Each structure stands twice: as C-alpha cells, then as structure tokens.
C-alpha cells in the first residue's frame, strides 16, 4: 500500500478513493470500448463491423447459395420514405453483390439521416462484408427530394454452413440536430 500520511486509516482511505476513481474510469476506458470490440467480433446485436471491407481476390463458392433479406424501418419521428428496392436475394459466398435502397424526404426542409445496420442471425454479422454502404455516412437530403442509396456486399466463404438466411435490417434515424455537432462515441 502507498503511504500518504502517518495515520494508517487515512492511507487506507486514500487508496480506496483511488480504487473508486479507477472503477469510474474503468467504465469509460474499458467497458465501453471493450463492448464495442466484442460487438464487432461476435456480432452482438447484429452489428456488422464498422469499417468498409476491402475485397480480396476470393473464390466464389458456386456450390452454395445464401438468401439475403433486406428490411428497412424508420425510427420514431423520422418522416422519410425509406425502402429497399429488392426484398430478397440469392447470393453465392465470395461474390460481390449490389442492391439499392431508396430514400425520400417528404418534408419541405433539408434533413440529415443516418442508417444503422443490423444483421440477423447475429453470428453471421462478422461474415457479412460491405464494400460500399450508405450506412458509413450521414445522408443529407434536401426538402422534397429523393436519393438512391447503393449497397455492395460480399458474404464470406467462411460463413458457417448452417446459416442459410441472413437478414440485413436498416433503421433510419433523424440526425439533423446531431449533424454538425460532434458525433461522440466511436
């Protein structure tokens, strides 16, 4: 134990205060980042890895098809019309696939949206690589205008064989107020 004072009780107390401060810091410097790392690694909540994936010259596994479903939903208070153009797709692992989502801002003023992806089953998330995705960026849309949002992805050949269907869901949030202000955490 460190010594701060001649009184042993005061030393004990100071050490314990240090422990308490450390535990407070632990929440921010360990728990939060660790949780995010674990989410990426295990696909907790179906969070696909945050970064864009650089395609490697991979063999396309023609022998196998995986069904990909697309879902789009709006979070509360988000008035955009937001939908996939294709709801279901059969793909081969290793192949590069693309689809397009449509978004339309019916409001008279410009807004900023942010699509948050989530994959089900969650354990498929680490094997679902997006090479291009609108979810990487905030999406501004002028009032009463529409945009096509492209998505390109590769399903990893290492996808466990018992997974036959992957659902990719996007929830679109209104981040107009947040945009510009620093978006914290991660």
């Amino acid at each position, binding site marked *: 134990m460190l010594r701060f004072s001649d009184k042993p009780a*005061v030393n004990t*107390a100071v050490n314990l205060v240090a422990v*308490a401060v450390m535990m407070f810091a632990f*929440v921010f410097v360990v728990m939060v980042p660790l949780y995010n790392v674990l989410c990426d690694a*295990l696909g907790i*909540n179906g969070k696909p890895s945050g970064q864009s994936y650089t395609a490697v010259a991979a063999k396309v596994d023609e022998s196998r098809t995986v069904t990909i479903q697309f879902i789009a939903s709006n*979070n509360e208070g988000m008035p955009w019309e937001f939908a996939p153009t294709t709801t279901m797709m059969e793909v081969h692992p290793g192949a590069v696939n693309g689809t397009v989502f449509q978004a339309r801002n019916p409001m008279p003023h410009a807004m900023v949206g*942010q699509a948050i992806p989530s994959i089900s089953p*969650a354990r498929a998330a680490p094997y679902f690589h997006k090479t291009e995705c609108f979810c990487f960026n905030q999406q501004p849309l002028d009032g009463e205008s529409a945009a096509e949002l492209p998505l390109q992805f590769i399903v990893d050949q290492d996808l466990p064989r018992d997974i036959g269907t992957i659902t990719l869901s996007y929830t679109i949030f209104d981040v107009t107020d947040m945009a510009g*202000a620093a978006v914290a955490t991660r």
Partner: protein
Amino acid sequence: MGDHHHGPAKGLGRWLFTTNHKDIGTMYLWFSFCMFILGGTFAMIIRAELFQPGMQLVDPEFFNQMTTLHGLVMVFGAIMPSFVGLANWMIPMMIGAPDMALPRMNNWSFWILPPTFLLLASTLFMEGGAPQAGWTFYAPLSTTYAGPSVTYFIFCIHVLGLSSIMGSINIIATVMNMRAPGMTYMKMPLFVWTWLITAFLLVAVMPVLAGAVTMMLMDVHFGTSFFSAAGGGDPVLFQHVFWFFGHPEVYIIILPAFGVVSQIIPAFSRKPLFGYDSMVYATASIAFLSFIVWAHHMYTVGMPVSGELFFMYATMLIAVPTGVKVFNWVTTMWRGAMTFETPMLFCIGFLVLFTIGGFTGLMLSIAPADFQYHDSYFVVAHFHYVMVAGAVFSMTAAVYYWLPKWCGRMYNETMGKTHFWISFIGFNLTFFPQHFVGLAGMPRRIPDYALQFADFNMMSSIGAFIYGASQILWLYNVIATIVAGEKISDEKVWDGAEGLEWTIPTPAPYHTFETPPKIDPAHAHS
C-alpha cells in the same frame, strides 16, 4: 474535541456536527426507517391500484413513477442506509475500537443523504413528474424519452453513490486499522466480515453506477450517443453497465443480512456458529461470483449463445456457496438449546423465506426457462423473497437483538412476536401468489391486468396492507421501548450472546473501548 470524555452535546448541534459512531448509526437507522415508510407508502399505492382489474386510483404514468420510486427509495434509502447504520453502531463495538476510523467523513456521508432524498421525492411535483423508467431505468426510456426530472435523478444517484462510497471507505479503514490487539481477521464476528466484503463491493461498483448515469447525463445534455443507435451507440450497453453494478448491488444488500443472521442464530441456539471459516470463504466467493454473472438479468436481449451459456453456468454456481451458508445455519441450530425470542423468530423467518428466494433464483438462472420467467411477476416474487424476507427481516431481527443494548431498556416481547407473525403472514400472502401470476403470464410493472390474474392480485394486495400495517406495530414497540421500556443493566442481554459488544455496560455508554479490550488469544472467534 474538548469534551471527548463527556457525554453528547446538547441540542440540534449534537446531531448536525456529531462524529460519534453511535449517534451517526442512530441517525442512519431512523433515516432508513423513514425511507422504509416512504417506499412502503409507494408500495401501498401500487397494491391499491392493483387490488382489482381496471384503473381506479392513479394514472398509468403516476403508477410508473410509484414503481420507480418504490424501488429506488427501498434500495438506496431504506435497505442500504439501514445496514450502514447498523455497521456504524456495531462494528467499532465488535472489534474493540473507540469509534470509526474517519469520524468526520462519517458525518458527511450521512448528512448528504436526507437532502438528496428530499430532492428525489420532490421530482414528484415537477413538471413531467418523477422518473418513471423503473428502478433499473433502461435507456432510451430513461434518456431520450425521459422528462426533465431525469437530470435531478442523475444528480441524486451521484450523491447517493458518493455517500455509499464514503461510508464503505470508512468501514474498510476501521476494520483494517482499528481492531483491538489480538482481534485477528479470523476472529472477527461474521457481521464484521460480511460488511468488510460488502464495503469492498460498494467501492468497486458504486463508481460504475456513477459512470452509467454520467453517460446518461452526457446523452441527454451534451449530444453524445452512448446509448442511442443513431450516433453509433447501443441501448444494450446501458444494461450491461447497469447490471455490472446491479448484480453486486444485490449482494451488497444481502451480505450484511447474512452477517446479522450469523450473529443471532448462534446466540439463541446457545451454540457456536457452525463452519465459521467456510462462512467467510462462502461470503468471499459469492462476492467474487457477483462480478461475472450480471448478464443473467438480460437473457432476452439477444446475446450470442456462448454468452448465455457462460452467464448461466456462472450464475448456477452461486447456489453452491449460498447453499453452504444455509446448511451452516441449520447445523448451528442442530443440537443447540434454542429459545425463540423475536430476533430468533425473524432469523428463522429469514432462513425459510430466503431459501425459497434462493430456489427461485436458481430457477431464474436457467436461461431457457428464464425466457418464460423474465420480467414477469415471478421475478418480482423472487427478489422480494430475497430483499424483504432476506434483508428487511434480518434488519428487523438486528434491531430487536441489539436495541436493549443500545438503550438499556427491554422491548415488549409479546408485541415483538406479534409483529413477527403478522409480518410473516402478510409477507407470504403478498408475495407467494405473485409466483403463480408470474408463471401464468403476468408481466411486471403493469398498472392493470387481465381478469385471470384478479384473485391472486387481490390476495397480494391484502397481504401487502397487512405487512405494511405490521410495521407500525414495530415503530410503536421501538419508541415505547426507548421511552418507557423496562430498564435492564446486565451486560449480556441475551444469555447465549457472544462478542465484545456484550462486555460493555448496558446501555452502551457514549464512548466505548477508549482503551482497547484484551482479547483472549485462546478464545475462538465470536
């Protein structure tokens, strides 16, 4: 202080500025009793609304405020401070110390509590009402969707945490540095041991709760997105952080209760506690396990199956040390020479009901079965068996056990026993039927329910009113004892009681053990 060897100061100043562990202990105990009554009043409102189907008395919004405040006030205002009060009174007397190690901090850690709870209660009258997201206040209901009172609530949690941490630091510093010569760790009374471990738990996890509410504060006011998916955060993260605090918190509440029961059962069995060493080890292992089981509160959030399995196995393991404790208590009674005064009755009540709560806890630990139990009244029944029959019953036992020592007057035994029986019957009538409605599918925290749950809910409400009313008898008995109880002067109030606190005069003088007592090295632990 100049008047060190004299009695207490006069007037209000005695209480405001006191650094005496007995005064502070007394204030903690009375404060926690007030909070017990306040939290109990909220419970009565809840049970009155649930007396029959339909919305009769309150609005669903107010109902949610009641469930939230009931939980917060009972956990942070009644149970935790009551055990801190008991620790203040008893730990110095049990280890032969003249006072707590840091008396001035002791005063602060108490006096920041009453204004905090006043503030928390005042949120009821604020625009938008008191917090209403449950005592577990899951985000985003407690952040994005909360009323303006959330900021005050966060402030209250911070101050309560500060108070608990200061109290715990004081207890650890006292136990580690102020033991009388010869009072080795393995000779300490079990109440001191359980509190020492509890205090370490508190120092470790209260800052985590502070971290959780700090993140909430930042999300609400400073534009961060820890718990909002929109900015890259995750509402489930809140639950992980909360329960990383919350599960150890459960043991923070129950471990001192284990300590109390381990003092009282041997006294009335007139036989030493069975398995002292294993009691200490079991307490320590429960404390350790409490850090790796938190996610069993969130089996339904959709964790990976590996996570579910890990938390399920770890949780099931807790049954082992808990079982050891129950077996030890029963074996302590075995071949003793028992009498059944009020403290012993409450301890036996504790033992039976806590064991039932332990069994339902084991059932809840089974993840697949928990998919049906989770967030139903089965859970409500389970944790009230542990919190009320566990913590509150043992606290009641402690008050009856040590009150004669504190004030030099004997309580009314008949009234005490009556209090026990009414409490015991009222408690079971309240919470046993809740197992049934929970299994039959009634979710918790609902202000109104389907017709098939009506009979058991009515039973539950009647039980709650009985249990609530019986506490008035307790209050009367305690006040009557202090004011006009039969005077006693035996150092040992109970013939089977062991420990240093029974070697000092009765009533306990304002200052005790100013010269450390001699502890017989041959004498086993007390």
